[in-house]
């Protein structure tokens, strides 16, 4: 593996890895169900089949993944598509190469104690709403659906509740009244009855209800520069991922679970299967971007992200994704 010396990061295009035959892909939480294709492809051996060396690097913070990519320390990221829009606003070119899902896979959960009072976005006034982090996609999505209901960010409290156990504990103890999270946290809260689903953005219908359109999220994105310089390499990776997407579609949650390392299933494998069941539907089979969805994502970010808002009109959405590789992979 090549290590870039940090002084050369002006060439933030990520071309640093070009000479290397290992593709480093950062994953914003390997055991998160929405990023499951990463680990699953590895488990299925599809990278090897394609003759490409891929190293998956786990990081719980999507932002670390993206920063590493821009700094040229990695060649790809499995994470939220909307970061590519954000980065264009900041003058960096990233593009989604394989789009795993056209819905966020996020769920707005309401604590069961509040389930009686919070029935729609309008009821969020004065509540404590959990997000993974201020400034993150979950924060923007929350601002969007509350904004649509006429509630400004000043009218509720945004709480950084993290994901996982801290989220669950916070919901249980009343630290948050509602909050946005993914599987398996959703599955756990539903199973114990500590939380109820308010907006299910794991389905197209639920996403449209909450956001008025699709919102492509889980994806493999890379720096435009790297993609341009290494088309064969990128194609191999895309082939592997698309193959995995198809595999997901043709197998049951239980079968998928059986393929995954036991560590990802934690102490309750049944819960993991439950989570897969809940979220499996978000993945498409082609790896292709839904163009309208991409526009909607720009719309959401353009309303709330301090970085995107002022540049909303200059942003060329077509530069934030490519369907070239996914198309070839499917054919």
């Amino acid at each position, binding site marked *: 593996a090549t290590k870039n010396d940090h002084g050369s990061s002006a060439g933030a295009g990520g071309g640093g890895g070009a000479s290397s035959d290992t593709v480093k892909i950062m994953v914003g939480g390997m055991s998160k169900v929405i990023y499951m294709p990463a680990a699953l492809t590895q488990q299925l051996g599809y990278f090897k089949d394609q003759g490409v060396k891929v190293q998956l690097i786990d990081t719980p913070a999507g932002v670390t993944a993206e920063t590493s990519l821009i700094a040229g320390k990695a060649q790809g990221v499995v994470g939220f598509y909307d970061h590519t829009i954000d980065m264009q606003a900041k003058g960096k070119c990233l593009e989604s190469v394989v789009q795993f899902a056209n819905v966020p896979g996020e769920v707005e959960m309401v604590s069961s104690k509040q389930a009686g009072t919070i029935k729609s976005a309008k009821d969020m006034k004065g509540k404590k709403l959990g997000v993974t*982090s*201020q*400034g993150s996609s979950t924060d923007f999505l929350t601002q969007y659906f509350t904004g649509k209901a006429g509630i400004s960010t000043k009218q509720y409290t*945004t709480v*950084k*509740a*993290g994901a996982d156990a801290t989220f669950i504990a916070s919901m249980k103890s009343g630290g948050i009244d509602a909050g946005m999270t993914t599987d398996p946290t959703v599955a756990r809260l539903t199973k114990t009855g500590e939380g109820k689903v308010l907006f299910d953005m794991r389905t197209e219908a639920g996403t449209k209800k909450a956001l008025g359109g699709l919102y492509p999220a889980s994806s493999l994105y890379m720096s435009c520069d790297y993609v341009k310089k290494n088309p064969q390499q990128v194609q191999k990776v895309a082939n592997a991922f698309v193959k995995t997407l198809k595999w997901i579609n043709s197998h049951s949650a239980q079968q998928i679970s059986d393929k995954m390392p036991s560590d990802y299933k934690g102490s309750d494998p049944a819960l993991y299967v439950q989570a897969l069941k809940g979220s499996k539907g978000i993945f498409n089979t082609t790896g292709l971007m839904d163009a309208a969805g991409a526009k909607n994502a720009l719309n959401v970010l353009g309303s709330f992200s301090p*970085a995107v808002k002022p540049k909303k009109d200059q942003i060329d959405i077509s530069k934030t994704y490519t369907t070239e590789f996914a198309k070839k992979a499917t054919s």
Partner: protein
Amino acid sequence: MSHDTLTADAGAMNGAIPTPAERKHDPRAQLRKHKALVYSLRAFVLVGVLAIWEISVNLWFDPFFYSKPSLIWKQLSTWFTDGTAQGSIWAQISITLQEAVIGFAIGAIAGVLLGILLGRARLLAEVLSPYIQAANAVPRIVLAALFIIWFGLGMSSKIATATVLVFFPVFFNAFQGAREVDRNLINNARILGASRLQVLRSIVVPSATSWILASLHTAFGFALIGAIVGEYTGATQGIGLLISTAQASFNSAGIYAGMLISTVLALIAELVLGYLERRLLKWRPPSQSESVAV
């Protein structure tokens, strides 16, 4: 009276005209001169580092990652004039400071008490030390998450993180300080009638003071880190959250600005500690370089 014990002030008041030699050796003038030198060198270092940073980022590096002083300054002035997304910057500072101060107090007191206790009680120390050693190796970042689960998202989880970070360095220094006490002093005190408790209070604690103070120098910084790591893991307010928000929105100037605020807080705490140290250790012989020749 052959004892020449005028204070310098009394001499001046008596209208005594200082001889040239006396004037040359006026310790206060020397002290002033030395202080001026130190402060100007400090300013020089600061300006130098900032200038190198600004220039090198302008010439070679990507401000996206490394930011630069002028951007950080802009970020700070935005925060201080327009406030932050979470409200007034002063509110954030006050929250983080409260968490750090409370965590510092609890951690330091517990560290000193337990350190001195174990330092003097050999069997207890032998039995417990592997466990304390082990506890010290628990990653605080994981603890911060556990504390949120145990204590909730409020201040208490951050205080707990700060406490834990402060406790260990203080404990280990107090422990060692208590063990290093000159045996002669203890023997003498016991002979003079000091009870075990009095030996502890009058001999062991003062002997360990410089050890404890040395650890406190690092400890407030740790308390701040604890509070920030706690906020970073989950919170509604505080500097840690500011940093995390800046990180999430790729605002490197914000990250550095947040860290800067935290370091300024640490420096202010250090001033207070330095004052305390000078008061507590005034009995100490001046080190060769410090002694003021008259």
